[in-house]
């Protein structure tokens, strides 16, 4: 087997990995970890999209919301399919895994209760997801993954445009803007969590060129999108651009305490990342219900197929 150093050097020169035999154990482990997070993130966004219909989707947006859900399922499939090729049992991952072992952003466990939350989750949330996709697409050394993500990227880009339209429409009335501000107040810090904790000095995933940018770089890139867009609509975000550092600086301690039941952050109470990891592991308000929906769908599909076969 190739040594870790040798493989890293080859990949840093721009070479690609095509087959499992070309990987080190470490490379395979990190690749699978990233694929699982990517697949879970796409897959678990779907029950949240489905919950938009409890809020009430205007008729003209029914087909777009359904189409986005279908896209996300397709994106999940891309990632899970590669995991399957690498020897994982995807049915077991999807339908038997414990709720606390899923690896998607906490954001998708939050209940959607009003239209402004639908709009912001699409307009700001989809962009965060798209950045994670592009961080792999534009850089990854695993060639099968890179090829599969081309179409994913294009679709994610359009989901953002859809969300921008919803947000722009809401911003047209003072009441809509006020509701959206309340939504942004709780969603924005949660969306910054998409990119994970601040990057380590040595990131093995970057060394293997499985991804290109660090978590901090991605967060900055996200802020360069979210802040000007929100400001253009008249929304305020707790961050400012520091001219000396040439980057956005958050005006609140990150991370800090979050109360998911009240959808409120306490900027006066900074917390350690360990506490955030514990919150993620415990999962959020809708996690069990969403997982239950998925399992129930699978069971009824299987029993339907079984009865047809028996007949």
């Amino acid at each position, binding site marked *: 087997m190739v040594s870790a150093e040798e493989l890293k050097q080859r990949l840093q020169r721009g070479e690609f990995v095509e087959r499992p035999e070309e990987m080190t154990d470490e490379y395979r482990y990190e690749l699978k970890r990233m694929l699982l997070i990517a697949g879970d993130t796409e897959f678990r966004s779907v029950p949240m999209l489905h919950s938009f219909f409890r809020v009430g989707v205007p008729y*003209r947006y029914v*087909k*777009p919301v*359904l*189409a986005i859900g279908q896209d996300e399922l397709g994106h999940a499939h891309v990632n899970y399919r590669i995991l399957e090729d690498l020897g994982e049992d995807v049915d077991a991952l999807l339908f038997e895994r414990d709720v606390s072992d899923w690896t998607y952003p906490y954001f998708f466990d939050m209940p959607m209760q009003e239209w402004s939350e639908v709009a912001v989750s699409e307009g700001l949330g989809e962009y965060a997801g798209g950045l994670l996709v592009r961080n792999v697409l534009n850089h990854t050394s695993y060639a099968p993954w890179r*090829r*599969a993500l*081309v*179409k994913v990227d*294009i*679709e994610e880009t*359009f989901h953002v*445009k*859809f969300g921008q*339209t919803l947000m722009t429409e809401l911003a047209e009335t003072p009441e809509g803007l006020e509701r959206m501000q309340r939504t942004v107040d709780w969603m924005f810090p949660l969306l910054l969590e998409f990119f994970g904790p601040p990057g380590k000095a040595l990131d093995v995933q970057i060394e293997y060129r499985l991804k290109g940018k660090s978590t901090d770089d991605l967060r900055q890139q996200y802020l360069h999108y979210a802040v000007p867009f929100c400001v253009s609509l008249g929304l305020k975000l707790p961050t400012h651009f520091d001219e000396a550092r040439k980057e956005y600086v958050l005006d609140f301690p990150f991370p800090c305490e979050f109360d998911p039941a009240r959808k409120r952050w306490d900027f006066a109470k900074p917390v350690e990342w360990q506490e955030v990891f514990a919150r993620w592991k415990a999962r959020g308000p809708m996690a069990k219900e969403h997982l239950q929906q998925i399992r129930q769908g699978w069971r009824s599909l299987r029993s339907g197929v079984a009865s047809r076969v028996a007949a």
Partner: protein
Amino acid sequence: MSEPLVARAYQALEEVMDPEFPISVVSMGLIRGLEVEEGVAKVKLTFTSMGCPWTEWIERGIKEKLLTVAGIRDVLLEIVWDKPWSRQDLVPGARIVLKKLGISP
């Protein structure tokens, strides 16, 4: 009817992209007819399917773009389904783009 104006209108529509692919609405074969009479652009438009989720975005994109063309002051869209869109409506270049995206053209 002014021919150069129609040509400019088509040129403008080359910049209106299909929401799902980096292919213009013209190259997708969605424009079934275009004429301009007294500043009013009359567009015959189809979609790839009746269930297309993005019809509103495509219509809006076309209207907004045509209104930027000097000499066009209004846009009338007529949605046509006869004959239904098929892959044969794609221009050859569009097929290459789709193939690159992993979609069978």
